[in-house]
């Protein structure tokens, strides 16, 4: 089979999907002087997209220099909180650090605004943006992807980039990637609650454009795999739950009710009080980790971002946006040299997964490869939160009975918990190793 395209094409590259992965890929390739078409099904880029909202954005300084100065970011995250919730209590691990404001590794974002801005940068760099158009299928000839079908039209390219997000119907229809097992997916259900700036800064103990991010486990999901999140924007809060689909399907619980239950839990409610609901939405999260990052290339095709399963949930942080941008950088580099050499074969494009392995994307996916398995442990979501809350109750409930050392209190709490000491210690060690 001849894998070097010589025929005339409509574009050097067609990118399907203008999320972070698609826009960064398109931008980088346009800067290299290639003709790039960026197709987005939403009427404007970002109008279909939703995330929790903390973007570990260092990678953007390489992808789009000047990002921090001009992108529509909400707040710089300087306070990170991990909360274990039980029905009546919460135990917080609260980490605030001014160094985070200096180094700016994480910012809160709202995707409708961010993605629109990213696509505008693409247009400025010479990308042809086509919003409001759904790509209906990839066109393949002799096992090689040669273009796209959209609204009855066919457009050809040397390389097609599938950046169509976690469901990636395009890869599925083309038989490149099959449906993922349910445990590799979670649904995020989110509300954006508007509050005055001053109120947010008081409630979260913030100043200026500093921000806080809460990751919550335990009662917020009624012990289902997943967790809650609460992030500060300039004048709103992003709040919601992430529910692993295998547990959700098995459990008999309703996703909307679990979202409501979390928003009305006393610990959450006190932050949201008096706010105005601006938007209610939902989106899938890729949770499979390394096990989901397979089949990233075909002759004439590269897959980037969520479509490639590149998301990491470590329990402390959900990371997908930075991996989307990182995979886009890697893909753009490989596609650029493929275009320069006129070689779009499987072999040529397989440089892309190798490139991913060299940078933080592949390395972090590998480092945290045990995280999905660790987070599958059902105790993570219920019993440990209750255990922690019983220990803390013992410490602070000074009811005139004589106090004992913490270790004895932990022993008592463990005795009253369905957890056994040895597996608990084992889980703790597994956690340290996985995360």
């Amino acid at each position, binding site marked *: 089979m001849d894998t070097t395209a010589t025929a005339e094409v409509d574009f050097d590259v067609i990118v399907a999907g203008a999320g972070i992965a698609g826009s960064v890929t398109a931008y980088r390739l346009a800067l290299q002087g290639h003709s790039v078409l960026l197709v987005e099904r939403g009427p404007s880029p970002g109008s279909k997209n939703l995330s929790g909202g903390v973007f570990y954005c260092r990678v953007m300084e390489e992808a789009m220099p000047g990002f921090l100065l001009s992108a529509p970011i909400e707040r710089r995250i300087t306070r990170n909180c991990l909360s274990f919730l039980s029905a009546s209590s919460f135990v917080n691990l609260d980490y605030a650090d001014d160094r985070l404001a200096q180094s700016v590794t994480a910012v809160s974002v709202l995707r*409708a605004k961010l993605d629109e801005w990213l696509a505008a940068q693409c247009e400025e760099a010479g990308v042809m943006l086509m919003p409001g158009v759904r790509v209906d299928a990839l066109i393949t000839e002799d096992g090689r992807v040669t273009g796209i079908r959209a609204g009855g039209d066919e457009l050809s390219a040397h390389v097609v980039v599938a950046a169509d997000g976690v469901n990636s119907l395009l890869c599925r229809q083309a038989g490149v990637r099959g449906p993922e097992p349910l445990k590799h997916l979670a649904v995020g259900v989110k509300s954006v609650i508007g509050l005055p700036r001053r109120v947010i800064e008081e409630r979260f103990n913030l100043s200026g454009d500093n921000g806080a991010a809460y990751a919550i486990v335990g009662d917020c999901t009624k012990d289902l795999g997943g967790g809650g999140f609460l992030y500060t924007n300039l004048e*709103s809060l992003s709040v919601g739950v992430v529910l692993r689909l295998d547990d959700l399907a098995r459990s008999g619980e309703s996703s909307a009710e679990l*979202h409501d239950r979390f928003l009305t839990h006393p610990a959450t409610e006190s932050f949201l009080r008096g706010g105005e609901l601006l938007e209610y939405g*939902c989106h899938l999260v890729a949770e499979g980790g390394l096990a989901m990052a397979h089949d990233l290339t075909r002759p004439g095709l590269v897959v980037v971002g969520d479509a490639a399963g590149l998301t990491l949930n470590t329990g402390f942080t959900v990371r997908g946006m930075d991996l989307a941008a990182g995979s886009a950088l890697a893909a753009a580099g490989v596609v650029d040299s493929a275009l320069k050499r006129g070689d779009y074969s499987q072999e040529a494009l397989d440089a892309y997964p190798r490139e991913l392995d060299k940078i933080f994307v592949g390395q972090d996916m590998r480092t945290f490869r045990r995280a999905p398995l660790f987070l599958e442990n059902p105790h993570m979501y219920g019993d440990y939160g209750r255990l922690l809350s019983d220990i803390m109750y013992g410490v602070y409930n000074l009811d005139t009975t004589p106090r004992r050392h913490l270790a004895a209190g932990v022993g008592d709490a463990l005795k009253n918990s369905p957890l056994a000491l040895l597996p608990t210690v084992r889980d703790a060690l597994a956690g340290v190793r996985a995360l």
Partner: protein
Amino acid sequence: MSKNPWGTVAERLDRNRYETDTEQSHILVNQAEAERAGAGPLLARICPARVYSEQANGEIGVLYAACLECGTCLAAAPPGVLSWSYPRGGMGVIYREG
């Protein structure tokens, strides 16, 4: 359910922006297959937008205009029950925050 200060799901979705495709639904249910697999209760509770409802005649109602296009139903439904695609270009939910 509506003791919740944020209103019912339907009330919340009313505040969202949609461009509804009035000509065709992007979700089709194979009712016979759904009944055989008993998929009704599952679909009704996993969908965050409450698009699916169990009707008196045993069929599954589909309020496709409320769909938030997450793909949860497609992932979780037993094979053969749903035919689901994204709405046609430009149609469907339009997030203003995200």
